[in-house]
């Protein structure tokens, strides 16, 4: 009879863990940055809104005050920026960002102005 560990290696038996796709933060061309002056839970200093947390496809925004973005894994989809009701999240070009991945996301003063296309609404890629 095979033991569990040996069995694991005789079959495709995967164990849970992060980063199957590697550090998916490297997929990003723009990073979301939260402006704490506009962010509802930040302003209230209490649990509120969390729409960015709700819609994040990748579990990289914390449900905390302030919300913190995990740049190691954030793929930069910008859904949070698109859905934030107070427009507190802006997408900043990675090339303009020289902060380490460990830095806090709540850097309102460093955020670049919203890009021109941010308010155009959905449109197809071509």
């Amino acid at each position, binding site marked *: 009879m095979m033991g569990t560990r040996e069995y*694991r290696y005789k079959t*495709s*038996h*995967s*164990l*849970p*863990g*992060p*980063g*199957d*796709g*590697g*550090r*998916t933060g490297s*997929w990003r061309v723009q990073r979301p940055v939260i402006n704490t002056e506009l962010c509802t839970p930040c302003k209230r200093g209490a*649990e*509120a*809104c*969390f*729409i960015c*947390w*709700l*819609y*994040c*496809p*990748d*579990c*990289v925004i914390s*449900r905390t005050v302030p919300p913190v973005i*995990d740049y*190691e*894994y954030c*793929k*930069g*989809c*910008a*859904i949070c*920026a*698109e*859905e934030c009701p107070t427009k507190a999240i802006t*997408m900043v070009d990675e090339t303009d960002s020289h902060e380490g991945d460990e830095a806090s996301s709540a850097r309102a003063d460093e955020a670049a102005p919203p890009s021109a296309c941010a308010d155009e*609404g*959905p*449109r*197809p*890629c*071509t």
Partner: protein
Amino acid sequence: MAAKTTILTLPKEEFVHPGNRACTGCGLSIAYRIGLKALGSDTILIVPPSCLTVLQGLFPVASTKLPCLNVTFASTAAAATGMLEALKAQGREHIKVVGWAGDGGTADIGIQALSGAAERGDDFLFLCYDNEGYMNTGVQRSGTTPRGAVTANTPIKGKMQQKKDVPAIMAAHGIDYVATASSAYPLDLYDKIKKALSLQGTKYIHIHTPCPPGWGFEPRYAIKIGRLAVETGYYDLYEVEKGEFRLTGASEKLVEKRQLVPVGEYLKTQSRFRILTPEQVADTQARIDRKWGGYYRTNE
């Protein structure tokens, strides 16, 4: 009826690991993440080949914290039956069995097994995430690809046929619970899964999951486009509970407001619909208007 879940009452616990291989802005990822919150930890998943197979990780790493059996493309629902009976044989019936398949694994190759299991009334939940095509293999048409959509194997003329109405097929099995949902309405999805889990027998939930690369839109608009599908009356949110049809959530509100967004607003957001002529858009609008005319009448 249970109180509606809000963002603040939604469980904090996550069952999906970050850094998985799902595409940027994946609609499935949102539905999956919220769906697993509703399923909870005492669940075993069954997944056929699909984008979800990739999302869930490549050996030896699993991006999901729930146990999962990957099965052959056609066999999700049959595997669910086998698992249920095995759990019964071992006195572990409290564990929930959940099949989670794409539209191909549900509407096309998976429908025989799904129909068989629903006919037997086996006590499990089947979730279909509908990204309207074989996205994992490079965006080929499926039974649920909508008319007019350009795909890799309908590259010039677009799909000529209508979308297969899988929830209606499932409702025709006489099972107690069929619902539609959308990743743009995660809390509605959460509540529907919770309700399904409270019922006996086969339950089916069809989830519309916008797909940025497959549909041709920028990832940031995944939620907006899912919402537009509902607001235009193109994709409806409803439940069929014990045979009774009822529009729910945003779709229910649309009946009251009687203000559908013109479907062109939805179609123009995605490059897959780029070949549609104004006549075809008008035809799509007319189909939606007929369907919604029926909804309005039953609501009078």
